C-alpha cells in the first residue's frame, strides 16, 4: 500500500507542506498558526509513504525546517511543530504495542488519530480560556485591547454573551486599531474591525483609537487584555507590533496587563531583548534620499513584479512582532489555568522533560 502511494505522489503531486499550511490558514479564520502547522504535519504524515520511525522523524524534521524557512515569522509556527515533534517522540518511545516494538502501521494510525484529537482539543481550548478569563472582565470596567487576536475576541464575546441575562457583564472596550491592514475578507480595513463589529452587535460599547492614542486613553482603561503569537520561556510574549508599548504604558500607569494565549503557543525560545528574536525584521530601516531614489528606480524596472512586491510588503508590515518582557505582564490566561509569567517555564519544562 505504501509503495504505490509514494510512487503516485512523487510523480503526480508532491505534497507541498507550505502550500498546505497557507491553505489551512486561509480556509479557516479561526485557526492559529501552531495548529495550522500541526494540521499540515498530520496531513503530511497521512500522505507520506514512510514505514519506519526514523524515516518518519526525518521527514518531519525536513519539512518542519522547510516550512519555517518559507514563512517570514516562524515563531508561532515553531511552537506547533516543536510540540508535535515532541509528542511523536514521546509516543514512539513509550513501551508497549505502540512503542518501537509494535507494528508501524498501527503506530501511524494511532499517531494520526491522536494528532486530529490534539487539533480538536486545541480549538476547544479557546472556550476554556474564555471561561477562565471571564472573571477578569468586571462589571462596569473598561478593557483596552489591540490586534486581531481570536482568543481575546472570543473571551470578550463570551463575557458579553447572554445580553440582558443574569450573567452578562456590562463593560466597555477601547480597541486599539493598528494602521496595518488586516488579511481577512475585508483586507482594506484595519485588523480587528471584525471583532469590533461583533462586540457592537452584542451591545458592547466599543471605542476605536489609533495606536498613537494609547497613552492618552490608558487613564480611562481598567485592564489591558492582549493576545499573543507566542509565549516564550521566560514568560514574556511575542506579539503584534505595538503590544510592547501598551505593556510599558500599562506598567507605568499601574494597570493590570493580561495576556490571553493557548498553551500550544508556548515556544522554546528565550529572547533577551527586542532584537534577540530569531527572525529578520526590517522595522528600522535607515535611508537617505539616494536610497529612496534607488529603490523607486528599481521598482519601476520591476514594474511587472510590482503587484507581487506590494503584496510581500504588506504581509511584512502586518507580520512584524515585538517582544513584551515578563516583568510587564501581570498574568497569562491559558487553557491550563491562569499563570504568572514565571510559571510558563515550569509548564514548558513539564512538556519537554
Amino acid at each position, binding site marked *: 500500500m505504501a509503495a504505490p502511494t509514494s510512487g503516485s505522489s512523487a510523480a503526480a503531486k508532491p505534497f507541498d507542506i507550505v502550500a498546505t499550511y497557507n491553505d489551512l490558514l486561509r480556509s479557516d479564520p479561526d485557526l492559529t498558526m501552531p495548529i495550522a502547522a500541526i494540521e499540515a504535519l498530520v496531513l503530511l504524515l497521512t500522505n507520506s509513504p514512510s514505514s519506519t520511525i526514523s524515516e518518519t522523524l526525518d521527514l518531519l524534521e525536513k519539512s518542519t525546517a522547510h516550512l519555517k524557512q518559507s514563512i517570514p515569522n516562524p515563531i508561532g509556527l515553531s511552537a506547533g511543530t516543536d510540540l508535535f515533534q515532541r509528542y511523536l517522540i514521546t509516543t514512539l518511545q513509550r513501551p508497549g504495542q505502540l512503542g518501537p516494538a509494535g507494528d508501524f502501521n498501527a503506530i501511524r494510525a494511532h499517531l494520526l488519530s491522536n494528532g486530529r484529537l490534539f487539533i480538536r482539543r486545541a480549538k476547544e481550548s479557546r472556550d476554556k480560556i474564555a471561561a477562565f478569563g471571564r472573571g477578569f472582565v468586571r462589571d462596569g470596567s473598561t478593557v483596552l485591547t489591540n490586534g486581531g487576536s481570536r482568543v481575546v475576541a472570543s473571551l470578550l464575546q463570551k463575557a458579553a454573551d447572554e445580553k440582558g441575562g443574569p450573567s452578562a457583564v456590562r463593560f466597555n472596550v477601547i480597541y486599539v486599531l493598528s494602521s496595518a491592514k488586516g488579511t481577512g475578507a475585508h483586507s482594506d480595513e484595519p485588523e480587528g474591525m471584525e471583532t469590533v463589529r461583533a462586540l457592537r452587535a452584542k451591545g458592547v460599547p466599543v471605542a476605536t483609537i489609533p495606536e498613537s492614542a494609547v497613552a492618552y486613553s490608558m487613564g480611562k482603561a481598567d485592564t489591558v487584555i492582549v493576545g499573543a503569537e507566542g509565549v516564550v520561556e*521566560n514568560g514574556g510574549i511575542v506579539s503584534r507590533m505595538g503590544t510592547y508599548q501598551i505593556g510599558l504604558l500599562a506598567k507605568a500607569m499601574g494597570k493590570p496587563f493580561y495576556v490571553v494565549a493557548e498553551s500550544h503557543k508556548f515556544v522554546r525560545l528565550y529572547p533577551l531583548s527586542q532584537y534577540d528574536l530569531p527572525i529578520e525584521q526590517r522595522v528600522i530601516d535607515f535611508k537617505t534620499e539616494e536610497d529612496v531614489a534607488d529603490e523607486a528606480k528599481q521598482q519601476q524596472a520591476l514594474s511587472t513584479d510590482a503587484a507581487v512586491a506590494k503584496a510581500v510588503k504588506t504581509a511584512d508590515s502586518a507580520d512584524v512582532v515585538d517582544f513584551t518582557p515578563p516583568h510587564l505582564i501581570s498574568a497569562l490566561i491559558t487553557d491550563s489555568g491562569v499563570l504568572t509569567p514565571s510559571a510558563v517555564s515550569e509548564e514548558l519544562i513539564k512538556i519537554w522533560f
Partner: protein
Amino acid sequence: MLLLEILLTLGTTVVQYVGILVVVTAAYVKQQQQQSVSQRRERVSSPAPPTTSTSSSTSSSAEKVSNAPPDRLGTPPPSFDYTSPFIMATPVESSQPLAEMQSQQSSSSSPGAAAGANASAKPAKPQQSQPAKQQPQQQQSQSKGKDAAAAGGDGAALSPAELKKKAKAEKAARRARERAEREQSGGGAGGAAPVGGQSAAGGKKGASGPGGAGAGGKDASGAATPQKGGHQKQQPRRGSAQATGQPSAAELKKKQEEKNVSVFGHLYGQQRRTTIAGAGKEVHPAVLALGMQMRDYVVCGSSARCVATLLAFKRVIEAYTTPLGTSLARHLTTHLSHQITYLSTCRPLSISQGNAIRALKLAISSIDPSVPEATAKASLCDFIDSFIREKITVADQVIAGSAAQKIQDGDVIVTFAGSSIVKQTLLAAHKEGKQFRVSIIDSRPLFEGKNLARTLANAGLDVQYSLMNGISHAIKDATKVFLGAHAMTSNGRLYSRVGTALVAMSAKERAGGVEVPVIVCCETVKFTDRVALDSIVVNEIADADELVTVEPVQQLTGLPDPAAQPAVEPKKGGKASSAPVETSTAAQSKSSPLEDWKESANLQLLNIMYDVTPAEYVDMVVTEMGSLPPSAVPIVHRMSTNM
C-alpha cells in the same frame, strides 16, 4: 656562666633590660638579638646535630615542597608524596622564597595560594626537628618563666617615667626583632622568636611575622608529634602567637574573636586545616592531597572541586575493602564520611560537592548486599564516571553551546572572575567565528580572572582586563554579562564569587543605557533547595591574611622608611652573609601596612568568599536542561533530583 645562660636563652628579655638602662638604638638591639639567636640556635641544635641549622638542606627541601602545588586542578600530582608528612613538613628557609617560587611557577600567581602554601609549610616545620629538642625547650620556658616573674617584680618597682621608657624600649625591641626575623628569613631561626612566657611579658609577636608563626607552630606541633593529635585543635590558628603558654590561651582566643567581623561572627567557626597531620588514618592519601589543594585554591571553582572530589572518591572506592562482618553498602558510607569530614575541614564543601556526594551515597546505599564486592566497586566507579560525564563534562558542552548562541557579532561581553563554563562559552562562540570583545573584571585576592584573560587572549579573542575598581568603565560599553555560579538557590538567587552581585547590578542599573542582559551559566548539579535571602546567613570566610599579602611591586623610588634603616646595615651574625641590599628591597616590597593588623585595635579584616545576587538582576540561567528564568530553578532542581 649563669648570666651567659640567661643571655642565651632570653636574649630579648635581656635586651629589654638594657633598654631601660641605656638608650638603645634599634640597630644595637638587632645586633644583640642576632647574636643571641645564632648562639642559641647552636645550643638548641647541639643535642640533635643533624637538624635544621644548615640552610642548604632546608632550601632544597623547600623547593621540593614548592614543586608540587602548582599542578592545577584535578588529579593529585604523583610526584608529591603526600603520605609522608616529613616532606610536607620540611622547614622552609623563609616564607618569602617559597612564596616567590610559587608565584613564578604557578601561572595564576594567586597570592592566596602562595600565602596558603607557605602557611601550611610553616607550622609543620618543627616536625623535622627531633623530639629530643623538646627538652631544652622546656627548660627554656621554665627558666624564662622564672625570669619573667622577676621582670614583673622589677617592673613594679619602677617609676611611671621609667615604665614609659621601658614600654618604649620594648616596642622598639619588638620591631627590631620582627625585622631581624624577616631578614634572616627565619630559617631554623624560628627559635629566634622567644618562646614561652615572653609574650606574656608584653611582647606580642607580629601576626604575620614568620618567626612568630614558626614559634607558635613549633610549640603546638612539637607537642603534637609524640602524642598524635593531642594539640591539633590549636594548629589551625596559624599566624598568631598562639600556643605560647597555657595561661594566655583564653585571652588569645578572645583576641582572635575580636578580630572577627561581628556581623559574620557565625561564619568563622573553625579555621581551615593547615596540615594533613592529625587527619584520621582512614583518610586516603588522594583525599589528603586534594584537601590541601582545595585549601590552597589549587583546585578551585565549584565544578573543579566537584570533579576532583569524585575522582578522589573513586580512588578511595578502588582501594577499599569491606571489613569482615559488615556489608559494603553499610560500611563504605561511613568510610566515605571520614574522607568528607576531612575535606570539609580543609575548606567548606561546595554545593556541587554536596550534591555529588549525596548522589554517590544514594548509589552506595542502593547496592544489593548480595552483589560481590568487586562488582559493586566497579559499578560505583562507573557511577562516578557517568555522573561526572553527565552532570559536568557533557553538561558544560551543552551549556557552552547554547549560551554561545546568545553571543552576536559586535557584542561586548563582560564577565567576572574566572568561571570555567564562561570560558568554554566564550571559546565556543569564538570558534563559531563570532566577532566580539570580552571585558574581564577581576578582584583581589584570588585574581581568578587572570587565567581566563590569558586563555582567551591566547585563543585569539579581544580581551580587556580590569579590576573591580574599574567596573563603571568596563560596564559602559557592555552589551551582555556572562556569569558563572557557585550555586543557584531555590529562590532564584545566584550565589557566586564575591563581587558578582556588584557586576550584575552595575549592568542592570547602568545609567542612561539600555538594560544589559545578565546571563548565568550553571550546571544543574549546582542547584540547591536552600534559600538565600542575603549573603550574611550563608557564606564562607577565608583567612583574612590573604588580604594582607601584597603583590611585589617594582618600586624604584619612594620615601625611605625610617624604621627600615637599620635593616640595611651590614650584619655580623652568621646569617649576614646574604647581600644586604637585596634583603632590604625584599623587605620593603613585602611589607604591607596591614601586616600587623592583628595587633592594632579597631581594625578587622573581612575576607568573604561569596555573595548573593537577587533574582531580579539575572535575566537567564543557561543549564544543560535549557535556558530558564531564575524563578524556574526550584522546578528544575526538583526534576533533576527526582530523575
